[in-house]
């Protein structure tokens, strides 16, 4: 069953077309990677799904679909006196300890302030925040720079595990093609308009990638060890 169906989506900011003619769908248990150069509308797509920006076209989700959203970053001042535990329970759901465990963070993090966390830790807390509400659809916006924590599972292994455990639809914005090949069932290439959509091995041909990123750009298709 589709957890999300997008048809002819168009988003315009100040006469500037940020997204045009986007159509794709996602089923439960599927992972969709969204790729594209900077400014290609990836984050805008998420904000349209969330309802944070106005749009034309259709974004359909079954009634009562719960969304978990992991933003690239949150704009918090470092000295904000809010603890991880308080942040996780802002959503009225209990069991913050268990949720932290699911993202490989020790319970001792509950008492830490959000501002004390490293960017890798903050990202995991944001993932915990997103899954604490038992979402049907998880939107993950990858930070441009890698924030993985040494000696731990990568965020992608974590997301993959969570996705299987909860059978949720996952959309991840990624800057790393290795991640796309390894973890995504489908890929959506954006450059303000839809360049490709389908199974990664089929649609990510060199000519499509050149269309997406421009001819001269080198892709960082490096392998993770």
């Amino acid at each position, binding site marked *: 069953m589709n957890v999300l169906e997008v048809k002819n989506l168009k988003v315009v900011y*100040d006469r500037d077309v940020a997204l045009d003619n986007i159509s794709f769908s996602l089923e439960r248990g599927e992972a969709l990677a969204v790729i594209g150069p900077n400014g290609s509308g990836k984050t805008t797509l998420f*904000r349209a799904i*969330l*309802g*944070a920006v106005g749009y034309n076209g259709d974004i359909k989700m079954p009634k009562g679909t*719960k*969304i*978990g*959203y992991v*933003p690239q970053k*949150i*704009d*918090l001042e470092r*000295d*904000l*006196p*809010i*603890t991880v535990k*308080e942040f996780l*329970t*802002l*959503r*009225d759901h209990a069991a913050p300890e268990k949720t932290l465990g699911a993202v490989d963070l020790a319970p001792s993090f509950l008492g830490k*302030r959000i501002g004390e966390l490293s960017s890798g830790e903050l990202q995991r807390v944001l993932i915990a*925040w*997103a899954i604490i*509400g038992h979402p049907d659809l998880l*939107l993950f916006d990858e930070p441009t720079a890698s924030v993985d924590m040494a000696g731990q599972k990568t965020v992608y292994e974590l997301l993959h595990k969570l996705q299987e455990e909860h059978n949720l639809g996952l959309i991840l914005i990624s800057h790393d093609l290795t991640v796309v090949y390894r973890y995504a069932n489908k890929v959506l290439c954006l450059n303000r308009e839809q360049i490709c959509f389908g199974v990664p091995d089929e649609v990510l041909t060199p000519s499509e990638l050149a269309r997406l990123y421009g001819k001269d750009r080198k892709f960082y298709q490096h392998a993770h060890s």
Partner: protein
Amino acid sequence: MLTPELQIFIAASLIAAAGGMLGSLALLRRMALVGDALSHVALPGVALGILFNLNIFAGALAFLIFGTIIIWAVEHKTKLPVDTLVGVMFTLALAIGALLTPKEDILEALFGDIANISQFDFWLASLISLAIIILLLVFYKKFTLSLISSDLALSAGYKPHILEFLFLMIFALAVAVGIKFTGALLMGSIIIIPAAASRNIARSMNQYLAISAVFGILGAVLGIFISKFYGFPPGPAFVLFAGALFFISIFFRR
């Protein structure tokens, strides 16, 4: 039973506690100056209240709600730069208020005077402040979430625009009751200073809200006490004490 002295302490403490808690939420999103700006909008209302012998609170509240709706609408319905418009509108309001206010009342309008609070105003200020405290406690998680990230609030199924509007309305109410205490010019201090001091030392949101309220009350009680003793106006005395607390709190910054 409630002597006039006691009434002043109670009303001022409740106003300051409500303002402190409100301020701690407002400072989550660098909204500190909204309080300052809003209090200026109240001034024409205060002036009309004095001129026509109406209740100052009612005049102030009417103008505040009007000002709040304008800020909210500009932020969400237009693409105008909010701070510029806020700056222009609010100095205009201050100028209009200053022209309208009778000369002999201008000090009270600008700096407040809770010492001659009427029986009716005492109950009004106390009950409204209490209502603000209760509203903030009930909605504090939702407000916090939409103030720190409206996208996260949306993903959780909340309506951040509506929550923000509700927050600004509570803000307007708080400013309207606070005007009696510190006046239009110093009202921002009730909202900003105790919260800023609390933020320096609090380790969690719960502490942050509680300490803001306590600092507000402390400033109010000490300020009124000193003003009785030396015959100062209570509003500026409050600001001095709250400011002192802020500077002390810097040394205990965690």
